[in-house]
């Protein structure tokens, strides 16, 4: 699948279009062509946008973490979840996990590890390094549904925290009408220019985050 290729959203046969939850964009990493085909289908049938790559190195390249261009954080590349095989030649899934968690731009992206081997120390090692979950292969539809729900729930909580903090900021701004006081926020971007009206700027950042989820 080419980078930036537009995904056709599958319309459920029940015709219920009233729920407009934002689609997750998942980056799936696996050296097996069979497994890539299966995971891609599992994710698409679960209403996710999917990009598959065949190695950890290609994954880093896709994210812009390979040192060539530096982390670009392009909005149309925004990845909401990374699912990676553990045993791959070159960079293992564990190595990839570490690199992502070391990146200030991408460390918030949840990473799920897949493996055909049920090795407890390996699972523990991955969870300690910050993996969101560990899936035993062969991966089934129920596994993907579960992961998706987990990720969507986390994203919804992030948005709720964001919108609550912005309602508070807006209220403060209205109260302090003549000279708005810059108040630091923990949940929005680390943009700390005190000259601007922080509330409206933070509201705009929140909008950007919302639209990038869609």
């Amino acid at each position: 699948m080419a980078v930036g290729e537009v995904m056709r959203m599958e319309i459920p046969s029940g015709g219920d279009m009233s729920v407009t939850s934002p689609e997750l964009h998942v980056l799936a990493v696996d050296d097996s062509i069979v497994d890539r085909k299966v995971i891609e289908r599992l994710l698409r049938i679960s209403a996710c946008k999917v990009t598959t790559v065949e190695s950890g190195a290609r994954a880093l390249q896709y994210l812009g973490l390979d040192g060539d261009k530096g982390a670009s954080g392009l909005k149309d590349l925004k990845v909401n979840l990374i699912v990676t095989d553990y045993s791959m030649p070159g960079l293992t899934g564990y190595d990839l996990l570490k690199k992502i968690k070391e990146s200030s731009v991408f460390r918030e992206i949840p990473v799920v590890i897949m493996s055909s081997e049920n090795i407890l120390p390996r699972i523990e090692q991955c969870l300690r390094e910050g993996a969101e979950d560990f899936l035993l292969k062969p991966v089934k539809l129920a596994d993907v549904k579960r992961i998706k729900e987990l990720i969507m729930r986390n994203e919804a909580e992030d948005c709720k925290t964001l919108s609550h903090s912005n309602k508070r900021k807006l209220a403060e701004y209205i109260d302090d009408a003549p000279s708005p006081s810059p108040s630091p926020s923990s949940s929005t971007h680390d943009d700390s220019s005190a000259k601007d009206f922080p509330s409206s700027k933070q509201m705009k950042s929140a909008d950007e985050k919302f639209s990038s989820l869609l």
Partner: protein
Amino acid sequence: MDTLVAQLQRQFRDYTISLSPGFFGFLDDQFTELKKLQDECSPDFVAEVVSLFFEDCEKLIGNMARALDQTGNVDFSLVGSSVHQLKGSSSSVGAKRVKGLCVTFKECCDSQNFEGCVRCLQQVDIEYKSLKAKLQDLFNLEQQIVQAGGRIPQVDI
């Protein structure tokens, strides 16, 4: 008197069951999982995946054969890594017998048992080709049912 469609559907059902773990054990429940992923938008999904799998078998078996052919200088870890990959993909498509053979094969690699490896290689080659023929028969039956105007029955393995 049975209609053609009913006859074909029964044949299909019986054939699928014969492949299941309770009978000849060619396939396991992962094959049913793959069928869940097939729909009007992706009507040939299962056929596409198994086709990729058989191409993968050919490639990996070729690698193993080449590695085992290095008389006196066999790299068993290389053979083992190909076996590991084959085990993974056979597991993903529900190819139960191929997967089972890979377990034995891996043990032969780990203990550097050359004769054992050669035997396993031969068996794996026969096995994936048998499965390929079986699945081709199954897909042909599906086609015949559809052409006769019938619906393909859901048969869980």
